[in-house]
């Protein structure tokens, strides 16, 4: 018995008709060309485990863990099978039956959920970088460009001074800002741009320092205990602030926060609070276009050259958001905006995937890099810090000059200095 | 010709009996049309069937656009009968007027309509075949799409009479085009003509037919007065509104190579033109044992024409060259009964053709590869049902 055999879950596992169309969109399958790494294959194995036909072997784990969770298969399945959700279920099952490996357990289970430990880890990493950055052989690791990952001396939440960034404390809309771990530690200046932008548009911005990790890593790898714990914590925190909307500039955080309502679907006590919370979550681009309806001409970073946009998986498929960011870019920059081929395909980062499956991740990211080159763009805009770092790093590893920018920076003329 | 046995069965039962008898006597069955002179004379002990009595249309299905006909029907006559009823069978080659449907199917010569309408095999939806031992097999029917097992029909078409004799065939038809028109141009050299025609096709024009004749052949066409210059003939068909555009495009491209362009719009004149051309070629072919049918790629045709013209110059008697750009094939045949003594133009021509990349000759009796030939032999045995096929698995090289 396992969660895989619970009737509602087992039923879902059995909805696959084996048409095989998921092979068309799966980025990992395209690199490996082995059925086991296509959604159809993975579902077959999950079913085999559920039926007791297969043990939870290391190879099974590898197959289950090597999914990008990019949701391409789910969006394109003729039968509506949500492959990524079933794989997440299989990961939950693995955690329950075998626990997480140490190398995942420490960051996911111990460090990220704990604000102090997280800050400590990032600071340690920053210090370590001071040593390894100048050493050419240690600048990249498994296809990840360590050198180009900036870790700020002071993370955004620790150093946040409302007076510094706010242009007026009171506003007609009260917005709770969810920063997200990566933006907090590696690009606090983007977080500042966001707050400045919102404050300039008649928003009262509230930034609770006790906010915790959104829970994406824990959820993605099936550690439901942790993801539920941090979710509850964030729900209670933000609900107590009485904000009209909760905004984030990170696609993954945004998707996770909206997903809180699904996590507590069956929990009568928390369900209402979760729905209340999730209902108020917006991605920055949604807030700017759909709610604030900002005048795009008013504030703009003076960029010259062609600009293209990369859709983070968690935005385009995770939240069905693809037109708002484009409206912003073409609204501000007009003809400078060019679409790149396969803009909405995964960048290959996928959280820890890039570290555990460097060959496939590098191949996938290189395809993104090739698309950028083909588009003729000088700048790549995106709405996810993880995508941003991944793409920027790979551009640098490929000796390409293009710069990657967060959407928020486009609307902040002061962020010019931050585009390296 | 008189030495050969040419029975002419009057019905299918008779046909079947003939086939059974000859099989028992170890005689090979061929169609009478094979008695056209060729450089390898057939064995006089073989039987040459004359199917001309089995020449009726069995079923014309107007709703499904199919026709089932007995194999002995004259191919040209079939097309005319269909046309009278508003149906178009877009298949044609130099030997149509003198050959039966069965012969056409067993030879599978390239069709001059191929560029626009596709090849013979695309139009056959059903066959009735009599195997060498007399067994009758029915394949297909009226369905355009069919993937039920192996494509036996495809195998039989073009198999000459070696696998069996096609006694009936069901063909699919198209509606007669609303309009058709011919346009000709004359050139100073064959190469210029072929180059011009190639350019037309490379620029996206899709004529129903497009052929180039060298000067000797052009002037040999009876009944029409063509000057002794290389000639390009193109036929366009389709809907009326599109025709002016096609013609205009033709003129635009071709005028870079020729300033002598004529349009023929009268349907009777068009029919006459093709008929006379067909007759000239098939009569010349019937008289001469040496002719070459070759196939190539569109982009190689210009270069090939230059080489062939040089050859034609060396041959003292007129040599006809026809290049069909619709199917990238061509025909080389002497127009007089004698050839220059001491000069073997045929093998010279074969050399030229073999040297040209992607150019191949028709009339291959065997495959190049030994193992495929082994399989070929096995297939012949299978169809003849003479005995067990050789199941030995040849050792890998």
């Amino acid at each position, binding site marked *: 018995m396992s969660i895989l055999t619970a009737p509602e879950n087992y039923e879902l596992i059995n909805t696959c008709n*084996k048409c*095989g169309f998921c092979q068309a*969109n799966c980025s990992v399958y395209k690199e490996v*060309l082995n*059925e086991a790494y296509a959604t159809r294959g993975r579902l*077959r*194995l999950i079913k085999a485990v559920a039926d007791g036909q*297969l043990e939870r*072997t290391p*190879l099974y784990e590898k197959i289950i863990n090597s999914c990008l969770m990019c949701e391409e298969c789910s969006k394109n399945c*003729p*039968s509506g099978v949500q492959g990524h959700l079933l794989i997440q279920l299989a990961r939950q099952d693995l955690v329950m039956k075998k626990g997480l490996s140490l190398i995942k357990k420490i960051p996911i289970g111990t460090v990220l959920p704990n604000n102090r430990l997280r800050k400590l880890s990032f600071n340690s990493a920053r210090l370590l970088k001071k040593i390894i950055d100048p050493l050419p052989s240690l600048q990249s690791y498994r296809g990840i460009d360590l050198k180009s990952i900036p870790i700020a001396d002071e993370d955004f939440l620790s150093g946040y001074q409302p007076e510094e960034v706010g242009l007026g404390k009171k506003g007609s809309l009260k917005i709770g800002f969810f920063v997200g771990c990566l933006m907090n530690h590696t690009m606090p200046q983007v977080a500042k741009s966001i707050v400045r932008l919102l404050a300039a548009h008649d928003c009262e911005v509230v930034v609770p320092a006790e906010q915790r990790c959104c829970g994406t890593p824990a959820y993605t790898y099936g550690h439901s205990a942790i993801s539920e714990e941090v979710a509850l914590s964030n729900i209670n925190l933000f609900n107590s602030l009485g904000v009209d909307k909760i905004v984030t500039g990170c696609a993954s955080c945004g998707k996770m926060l909206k997903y809180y309502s699904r996590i507590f679907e069956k929990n009568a006590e928390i369900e209402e609070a979760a729905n209340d919370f999730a209902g108020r979550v917006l991605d920055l681009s949604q807030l700017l276009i759909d709610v604030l309806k900002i005048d795009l001409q008013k504030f703009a970073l003076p960029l010259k050259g062609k600009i293209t946009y990369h859709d983070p998986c968690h935005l385009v498929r995770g939240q069905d958001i693809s037109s708002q960011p484009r409206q912003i870019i073409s609204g501000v920059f007009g003809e400078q905006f060019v679409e790149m081929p396969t803009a909405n395909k995964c960048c290959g980062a996928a959280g820890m995937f890039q570290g555990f499956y460097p060959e496939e991740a590098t191949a996938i990211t290189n395809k993104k890099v090739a698309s950028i080159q083909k588009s003729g763009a000088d700048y790549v805009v995106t709405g996810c810090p993880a995508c941003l770092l991944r793409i920027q790093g790979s551009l640098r590893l490929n000796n390409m000059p293009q710069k990657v920018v967060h959407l928020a920076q486009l609307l902040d003329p002061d962020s010019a200095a931050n585009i390296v | 010709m008189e030495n050969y046995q040419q029975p002419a069965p009057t019905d299918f039962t008779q046909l079947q009996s003939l086939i059974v008898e000859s099989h028992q006597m170890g005689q090979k069955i061929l169609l009478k049309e094979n008695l056209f002179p060729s450089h390898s004379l057939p064995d006089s002990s073989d039987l040459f069937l004359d199917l001309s009595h089995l020449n009726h249309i069995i079923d014309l299905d107007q709703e*499904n656009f*199919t026709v089932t006909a007995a194999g002995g029907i004259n191919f040209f006559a079939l097309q005319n009968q269909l046309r009278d009823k508003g149906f178009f069978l877009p298949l044609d080659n130099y030997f149509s007027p003198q050959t039966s449907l069965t012969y056409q199917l067993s030879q*599978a010569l*390239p069709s001059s309509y*191929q560029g626009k309408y596709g090849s013979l*095999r*695309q139009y056959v939806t059903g066959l009735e075949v009599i*195997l060498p031992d007399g067994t009758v*097999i029915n*394949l297909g*029917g009226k*369905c*355009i*799409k069919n*993937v*039920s*097992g*192996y*494509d*036996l029909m495809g*195998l039989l*078409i073009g198999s000459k009479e070696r696998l069996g004799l096609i006694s009936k065939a069901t063909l699919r038809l*198209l*509606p007669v085009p609303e309009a058709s028109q011919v346009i000709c141009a004359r050139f100073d050299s064959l190469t210029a003509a072929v180059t011009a025609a190639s350019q037309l096709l490379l620029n996206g024009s899709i004529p129903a037919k497009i052929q180039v004749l060298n000067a000797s052949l052009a002037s040999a066409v009876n009944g029409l007065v063509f000057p002794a210059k290389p000639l390009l003939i193109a036929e366009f068909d389709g*809907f009326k*509104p*599109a025709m002016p*555009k*096609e013609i205009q495009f033709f003129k635009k491209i071709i005028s870079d190579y020729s300033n002598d362009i004529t349009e023929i719009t009268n349907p009777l004149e068009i029919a006459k033109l093709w008929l006379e051309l067909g007759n000239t070629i098939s009569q010349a072919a019937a008289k001469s044992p040496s002719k070459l049918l070759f*196939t*190539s*790629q*569109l*982009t190689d045709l210009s270069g090939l024409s230059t080489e062939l013209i040089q050859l034609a110059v060396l041959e003292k008697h007129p040599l006809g060259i026809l290049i069909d750009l619709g199917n990238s094939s061509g025909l080389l045949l002497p127009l007089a009964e004698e050839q220059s003594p001491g000069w073997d133009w045929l093998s010279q021509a074969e050399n030229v053709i073999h040297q040209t990349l992607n150019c*191949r000759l*028709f009339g291959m009796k065997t*495959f190049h590869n030994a193992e*495929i030939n082994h*399989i070929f032999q*096995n*297939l012949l045995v*299978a169809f003849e049902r003479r005995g067990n096929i050789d*199941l030995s*698995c*040849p*050792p*890998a*090289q």
Partner: protein
Amino acid sequence: MTLAAHQLSKLVSIVGAGNATLTKEELLVYEYDATLLKGDPEIILFPKTTEQISKIMAFACQEGIPVNTRGAGTNLSGGTIPDQGGIVLALTKMNKILELDLANHVVVVEPGVINQDLQEYLAPLGYYFPPDPASMKACTLGGNVAECSGGPRCLKYGVTRDYVLGLEVVLSSGEVVILGGKNPVNPEPLDLVRLMVGSEGTLGIFTKLFLRIKRFSHAKETMLCTFDSVKEASQAVSSIISQGIVPTTLEMMDNLLINCAEDFTHIGLDRTAGALLLIEVDGHQEELADQVAVIQRVCRQNNSREFKVAQSTAETDRLWVARRTVIGAVARKRPSYSLQDVTVPRSKLPEIVEKIVNLSMEYDLPIGVLAHAGDGNLHPLVLFDERIEAEVEKVHLVEEKICESALMLGGTISGEHGIGLLKRPFLANEFSPEAIFLKKQLKLAFDPKNILNPDKIVEVG
């Protein structure tokens, strides 16, 4: 069949350990294809070169090991099921486009190239490869050639067989041969190329495909038309062709499918309509207006209800949405679906649809009909629940009955999906014993040891 250790290691050594697998996990995922059938593969090999395949076949021939070739495994007749054990030869890693000769309309590709990838490669150049089955974004060209895949354009432009100029084939002995070539005409003594197309992996393994491509037409028009009944829609189809128009596409959907599609897409389809026709014509822009007018007139004469002509590319896409999403829409109604495939002469379409409606009531299974109306090829969509064994049984019975009906109406048991394993029992209904004997001899001539996808299409073992 159980392979011995020394045999397995020999096979692994031919392709290298990185291109072979024996793990239980991976064997499990190579048991199936898009049907409900299951096989027992013993080793999966991912060759990258013709030479490797030649060595594999030479060894397999010597040892009598079955070899089941596979592309994306999306076929619908069980052709890729390794039901006799042995090797699964997955050609997905042979996925390069090797040569392009636009002037001569030829492209040379490896068998693992995805159909859609070829289309995307050719499209910017103004060309395409006409056979475009619904699975084109996932299926491989090698699979398309092996199954002689169809697609909606067949009426005007033909099937895969008409677009294969030549093949590099590895025979059962391991010998590598080239059949045909790049010429538009094949002068070989027998047309073995055509025979290979649709041979479903039983006569040889294709390692290079020489394919004919076409230039895009100058222009096209797309129309959507609804009718009171399938009969009237079919009549309209025949009349359109009698008027001298050969449309490129004539897709028909019955009432059940119209409702499923509308449930899913909400594009305003008439839920009470008996049938829907999606029609496309192509050619020079000048001639299309007249053709559309004729088609509209013909449809009206056959009691059409609504007639819409797409005014823009976006609208064309919208009109196609109903057709493209119908399988997805239907799949959400019941847990499982079976997509079937038979062909009848065009004039018999109303009759077979009526028979199918009766079968649906008799067996109490919803069945929708999707048809390539122009060529009489239909795809009944049978909805069921695969966990209920009784329903699975019924699906097989219905399939048999549909094949029977098709044959009685002068049709064939497979228009596009092939015979494989699923339709093998019905072959004897369509062909005489002598014809079947010939097919078996043909198979043995190419594969005396019956190791190439053994006993698919016909049973010789």
